[in-house]
């Protein structure tokens, strides 16, 4: 069985600030980490590997230093890493990102299951998983909180508002994973020491390697363009309701009615 896990390197947003003047992320002193949900996706793949005869490949697109999350993936137990890195990939929107990742997955050969995080905590779109499934023309289950594999199909619990769907689909397929799916293992010391050796397989691919033209990926291949990023002026207004308790209560209800807020059924 062949499993492919998509992992993204992101700035550790628990300590990220936005420069109020430029509107850019202040990257200085910010460490990079593996997107948290991707660790859960990788854990899901590794626990499948623990029970079945499976090979796990991790793929990341990013600048050269994203090799660190590939090493971390190998240190957790993946068999092979692929880093997509090329100036041509820079500035990609989600369309261009999934075009590059989709082509790389195709080039990497047949697979049974692709696992991604639901959402990257920096870009936050939750689009990459679904777009890649569309690109490859395979079924997808998003927001997965439980996962089982059995002869040629995957059964998963998909968390939705107010509940959970249980979905079955034939392989090959793509799932996007939630943190509630599992508790990721830590890299082991022995595997960490192996992951940094040149003898541990990490393939480095550029645009030409995955058979795409520079204008199909990166900024040039993006369908959307960011015009401006800024921190919204966070002016919150506090309104005090006064009067008797029943005046205050009807004031609150009127407040909801005015704003068409539907209270629970």
């Amino acid at each position, binding site marked *: 069985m062949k499993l492919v896990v998509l992992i993204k390197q992101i700035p550790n947003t628990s300590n990220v600030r936005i420069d109020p003047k430029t509107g850019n992320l202040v990257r200085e002193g910010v460490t990079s980490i593996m997107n948290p949900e991707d660790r859960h996706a990788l854990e899901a793949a590794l626990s499948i590997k623990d029970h079945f005869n499976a090979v796990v490949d991790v793929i990341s697109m990013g600048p050269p230093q994203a*090799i660190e999350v590939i*090493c971390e993936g190998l*240190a957790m137990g993946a068999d092979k890493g692929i*880093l997509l890195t090329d100036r041509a990939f820079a500035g990609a929107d989600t369309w261009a990102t999934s075009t590059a990742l989709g082509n790389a997955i195709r080039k990497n050969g047949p697979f049974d299951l692709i696992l991604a995080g639901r959402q990257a905590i920096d870009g936050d779109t939750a689009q990459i998983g679904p777009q890649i499934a569309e690109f490859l023309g395979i079924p997808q289950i998003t927001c997965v909180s439980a996962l089982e594999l059995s002869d040629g199909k995957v059964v998963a619990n998909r968390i939705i508002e107010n509940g959970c769907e249980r979905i079955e689909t034939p392989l090959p397929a793509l799932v996007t994973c939630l943190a509630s799916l599992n508790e990721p293992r*830590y*890299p082991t*010391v022995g595997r960490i*020491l192996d992951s*940094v050796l040149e003898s541990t397989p990490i393939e480095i691919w550029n645009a030409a390697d995955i058979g795409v033209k520079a204008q199909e990926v990166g900024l040039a291949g993006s369908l959307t363009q960011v015009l401006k990023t800024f921190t919204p002026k966070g002016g919150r207004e506090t309104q005090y309701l006064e009067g008797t308790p029943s005046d205050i209560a009807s004031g609150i209800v009127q407040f909801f009615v005015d704003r068409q807020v539907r209270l629970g059924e």
Partner: protein
Amino acid sequence: MTRIPRPTAEEMIRKTFARFTDDEIIPKAREMDEAGKFPRWMFEKIAKTGAYAMRYPRKIGGAGGNTTQFCIMVEELARGSMSVAAFTAMQCLMGTNFLYQYGTKDHHERLLKPALRGEKVASFALTEADAATDLGGAKTMAVRDGDHWLINGSKTWITNAPVADFFTVLCQTDKTQGLKGLNFFLIERETPGLYVSKKFEKLGTRATEIAELAFSDVRIPLENRLGQDGQGVGNLMRILAVIRTMTAALSIGLARAAFECSKRYSLERTQFKKRIGSFQLIQQKIANMATEIWGANLMTYKAAEMIDRGERALKEASMAKYFASETACRASDEATRIYGAYSYSMEYDVQRFYRDCRFLLFGGGTSEILQTIISREEGVY
């Protein structure tokens, strides 16, 4: 295909164990300290990272790591809990070293490999009531009796004793030989005649358990002498530099924890309508802590690097341990001053750093004896 430099093993070890410490240890550190019990669940959680196998070669189930990497790992753990770092260091180094170096194949299969996987707990017993800094005063006797050794005596201050599965014990085989008569022996917990006292009530590192051992006609096979006859102290000397450098790394971890708390509190707490960090006397404490931690760091990792190059490094390791452990004690002392009354409250972590740092002054040689050694290494004695 383009080549891209990979991160170093040291960076990866640092990052992994920093995250482990932040996510797994720090949220539980106070609870473990208050419970005052060996947290087996934590011992097992650490085992899953392969930490205990760090220093040993692949052929016996080790990871093949070096002293620098080992020090980075225990430094990060110590930042979260000195108790946890102390039992990890015991399992990685003192508790297993002699079994690895001088044990039989059967010892390796039955005890060492399970210990590296965290399935058995290791312990190391040198200290006796009247033989502490002066190991030559050891009175625990191992006497050859046919095809066995017969052990009689006692040990005290033994880390992990209440929970350990096997002990590496320093015994005297020939009183007339003094230090040359000292040898290490492997004694398994279930051996008849081995008694473990109840655990000590102690000031710090409360989540490691410490007790006394008593040996009354304990009979062990001849092959349980670990090392050639008379080589006990010599063999101990071979890892003494590693023990001291490791203890220096533990000290840096604790000093950093005290320092981080101090910085945060200096920026939060206000008096006279100002952050206390705006007062120069508080700034002086912050500056001195930062400077000493930097110094301890340079000394410790330089000593580790020398050990990894195969150098003796006993003087440098002694200096690193002396400076770093005193740094940890000063940093936690200053942290309590910055916290004022709140350092006196069990609700803040600084009181734990203040209690735990005292342990660093004794294990691996007291500051007094280290100064004696450094001076002797410099030719003045």
